[in-house]
């Protein structure tokens, strides 16, 4: 079984982004970029399934500008076997990415696609579900445990209030939650080896997908700031403020 893992290049999670003064977006020039944290978890899970013998090949995919190749090299260094870069400078929204991935799913016929549950830039939490819909496959989102047995996969999902276990027929789509695993660190020898692994380059047109954005961003603004708070000297002062000033208890 092949496993396909889509990965996204995003602003590093430690960076506090700034909104551009003209309100057209956030300033990501000269900002550190890295692999979306949930996608690292997805790659790690795919590599672990391969190590357990449940998968034969792990293919990493990334859609976007040429620098996405760096993200794919990271995926290869973690343990993916080969990579596909769908190169475009166009703004890609989740529906477009899902369509590109659906075309790749049709071509590569993976047994499992593992995605991150959301990207930390657009915070959409849509692509996996959309891919499942477009490919006509079952989905298990927010996975904290994945077990493949025969032609079935059993997934434990994090839901409001607790956990839920689903069983799906393969092929299937899984999106990762934080607790699924702890991604390994990439080692220098693996980074060197990753440079020799195959990386295929395709264009959206090769896949027959129109990636034109469907939503128009009119404006991006800073969120309303909170007014500066105060420090209180001790517990008594805190209780007094909460009772008499804020009146919340």
């Amino acid at each position, binding site marked *: 079984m092949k496993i396909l893992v889509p990965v996204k290049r995003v602003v590093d999670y430690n960076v506090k982004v700034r909104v551009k003064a003209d309100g057209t977006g956030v300033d990501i020039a000269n900002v550190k970029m890295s692999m979306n944290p949930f996608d690292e978890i997805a790659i790690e899970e795919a590599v672990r399934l391969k190590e357990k013998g449940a998968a034969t090949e792990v293919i990493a995919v990334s859609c976007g500008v040429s620098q996405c190749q760096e993200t794919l090299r990271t995926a290869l260094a973690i343990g993916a076997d080969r990579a596909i870069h769908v190169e475009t400078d166009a703004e890609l929204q989740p529906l477009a990415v899902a369509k590109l991935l659906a075309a790749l799913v049709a071509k590569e016929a993976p047994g499992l696609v593992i995605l991150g549950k959301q990207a930390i830039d657009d915070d959409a939490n*849509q692509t996996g579900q959309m891919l499942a819909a477009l490919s006509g496959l079952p989905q298990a989102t927010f996975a904290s445990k994945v077990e493949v047995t025969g032609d079935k996969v059993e997934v434990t999902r994090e839901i409001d209030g607790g956990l839920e*276990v689903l069983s799906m*027929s393969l092929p299937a789509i899984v999106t990762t939650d934080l607790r699924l695993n702890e991604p390994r660190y990439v080692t220098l020898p693996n980074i060197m080896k990753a440079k020799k692994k195959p990386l295929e380059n395709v264009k959206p047109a090769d896949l027959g997908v129109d990636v034109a954005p469907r939503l128009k961003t009119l404006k991006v603004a800073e969120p309303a700031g909170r007014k500066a708070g105060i420090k209180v000297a001790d517990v008594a002062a805190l209780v007094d403020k909460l009772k008499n000033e804020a009146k919340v208890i």
Partner: protein
Amino acid sequence: MTVLVIAEHDHGSIKSATLNTVTAAAQIGGDVHVLVAGQNAGAAAAAAAQIAGVSKVLHADGASLAHGLAENVAAQVLSLAAGYSHILFPATAGGKNVAPRVAAQLDVAQLSDVTKVVSADTFERPIYAGNAIATVQSADAIKVLTVRGTAFDAAAAQGGSASVEAVAAVADSGQSSWVRSEIAQNDRPELTAAKIIVSGGRALGSAEQFDAVITPLADKLGAAIGASRAAVDAGYAANDLQVGQTGKIVAPQLYVAVGISGAIQHLAGMKDSKVIVAINKDAEAPIFSVADYGLEADLFTAVPELVKAL
């Protein structure tokens, strides 16, 4: 223009996130219909009919809908979608699971976690962990949205008089099946609906100390318990208590952050709280930049003192 709200329910009653979503639907304008999809969910459908501002409840009842499987619920929504200009889901684990599936099958983009209705086709939503607010316009014929509950007031659960109309349940997709659920039992208010939340972080040191310090304070305040990602990852608290960008988004009247440094990802989940209190011994902790009242103290002495003083 008619708006369809997909109800979140436990078959017997309507969950509060649905009420916030109905308010967002009312702001879009037009008639508001609510879909209750489940098995033996007649009580939930009856409750939905009582919500103020709802003009019709569609009740789909069938074994395929018993566990809210995304494949079946999405198919159910799609079977009804043609008559609607907007389809709204609460931005809960359930809503987020199904909404994109519906949008993709309608070939429309989806708007996630909408925090403001500007007009029938323009909405605000946070991006980059809430560090920016995007105003987004959709040109699609049917708009599929998930609604952030904390950004909208709850519609009154009583006072409505909608008719309940039964609709045929879809057949089971056969692709997935529910095996079991493990729902944590507790008597506390639900995290996303609580008026007061006491949250603990890594500084608590262990699950026992988390319990020993946080629980008495939460009990005293009648509060829900939350946790930072660090506390959850370290096993001090259950996963579903995580507050933050990738956990629950909360906006209570009072949020007490105990031993939480205040990483961007945590602030994204709680910075719309009315009053924020931070108890931390590190004067430089970022949490103090959003706290209305900061107490620089060792939590192991300050919190028990606070419990006593209340």
